[in-house]
């Protein structure tokens, strides 16, 4: 029982939840807002592209430990990747938080694997994936508000 909770709130998650990285506005970037109307989580994700490559990425907003940590870890994982790589990573991340670590080839997900505990908490999948859905919108041009209750 308790170990599932410990898996969910791993030290990495707590750390990124308390002290999110790349947690600021990014001037001159493309951005989109992500909103979960059910719990009130609200983030803006900023991306600066250099051609096809993500030169810089940041976010701001408010949410629970899971959504904030996930957004923070996402920004760290994305820097330097191409758009296509980012989308592919989102797909695997999504598999990780919905179906668990076995299906998602955790080995090369790096620090994102810290969110694998989410798969045991279906009501929290939307928290972990909010920033990613928002990123997806940014990569398609941004400017819109993503409303997800997934």
């Amino acid at each position, binding site marked *: 029982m308790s170990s599932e909770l410990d898996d969910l*709130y791993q030290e990495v998650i707590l750390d990124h939840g308390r002290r999110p990285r790349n947690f600021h506005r990014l001037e001159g970037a493309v951005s989109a807002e992500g909103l979960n109307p059910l*719990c*009130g989580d609200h983030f803006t994700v900023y991306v600066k592209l250099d051609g096809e490559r993500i030169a810089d990425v940041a976010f701001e907003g408010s949410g*629970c*430990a*899971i959504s904030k940590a996930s957004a923070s870890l996402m920004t760290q994982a994305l820097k330097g990747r191409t758009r296509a790589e980012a989308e592919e990573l989102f797909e695997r991340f999504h598999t990780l938080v919905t179906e668990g670590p076995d299906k998602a080839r955790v080995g090369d997900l790096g620090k994102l694997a810290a969110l694998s505990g989410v798969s045991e*908490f279906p*009501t*929290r999948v939307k928290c972990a994936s909010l920033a990613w859905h928002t990123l997806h919108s940014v990569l398609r041009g941004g400017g819109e508000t993503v409303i997800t209750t997934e």
Partner: protein
Amino acid sequence: MGAPGLQAVAAPFDAERVKREFPILARPVHGKPLVYLDNAATAQKPRAVIERLARYYEEENANVHRGVHLLSERATAAYEGARARVARFLGARDPREVIFVRGTTEAINLVAQTFGRARVGPGDEVLITGMEHHSNIVPWQMLCREKGATLRIVPVSDAGDIDLADLERLLGPRTRLLAIAHVSNALGTVNPVKEAVARAHAVGVPVLVDGAQGAPHLPVDVGDLGCDFYAFSGHKVYGPTGIGALWGRLELLEEMPPWQGGGDMILSVSFERTVYNRVPYKFEAGTPDMAGAAGLATALDWMAGLGPEALLAHERDLAGYAAEQLAAVPGARLVGTPRERAGVVSFVLKDVHPHDIGTILDREGVAIRTGHHCAQPLMSRFGLAATARASFAVYNTRADVDALVRGLEKVRRMLG
């Protein structure tokens, strides 16, 4: 019986015994005993109500108001008997004043779309309070947008109360309706509805009371409150889901246009002209939730059997105890400290998001609600995106509150 106050002391309410009448409360959650503190969202059902639903389908089911056969008679008797039971619950003088709906939301929409559309025009105003549930905001917003009218809001104080002086100031010559919660679902505030009605009526403004959180906790007497409409949901008063009631003053209901068109709401139909049925049937198009109505009547009987005085004293004690215990949790802050509270305590924990509180408590078997409680404008008023909310029912005990507080200690250990 002559001294209810004394009797409540002499024969304390046995919540543990009441709890045993609810099958779901005996089921473990994550291997722990269930401590259900999400009653403002929906209450659990006693065995009597669950059995009533089965009995309706096993012995009485047919369509109402139609057949000449025995079962149709039985179904009609169950359904109309339930209407009379609801009327008695609300202190209404006439069962025709009770319209069955899906719940409070549908009741308010019905009033907005019939009474509202007939009475509200360009430049008019509808007055609500800053603590309303979305279901007592959005239907009025939709109406105001359609009619070119304005929605006005009675402000909420830091404690979570409204000030009757503000209400009086906002009741203007263009106000066509006041819509106000009996009890706030997010803060637990008991609004001074009777006084609000008096002030509204003094300037000729009719009043709708959203009783979704009032009916489960407070004795309701529409005659005493003086209101013109009262709406509540069956599932929050230990009844089935999908059934609720709108009470309205007969003379208002008579003049209101029908809402949905269909069977049962008509007397005669030709392609040229339809004659509508009388009140309340003109507002009940289509086959109604007959089993739900029967189940609701049983729920109201069941509640009445507990003794309203004892129930009230028990719930007051619980909410007070919870507010006191939660305020003492390090890092916790109550959201809303109203003059009078019923059934609900909202709080936040320093540096911990309510959603994370909810997940950890759930694993301890403690079910609470976290989020904006369908009251986003109220949350903005307090500068919050979300709170954690514990809400109480007849079967809760002080031990449940203690389990909540122990759970919060675990939350603080893990995340604090």
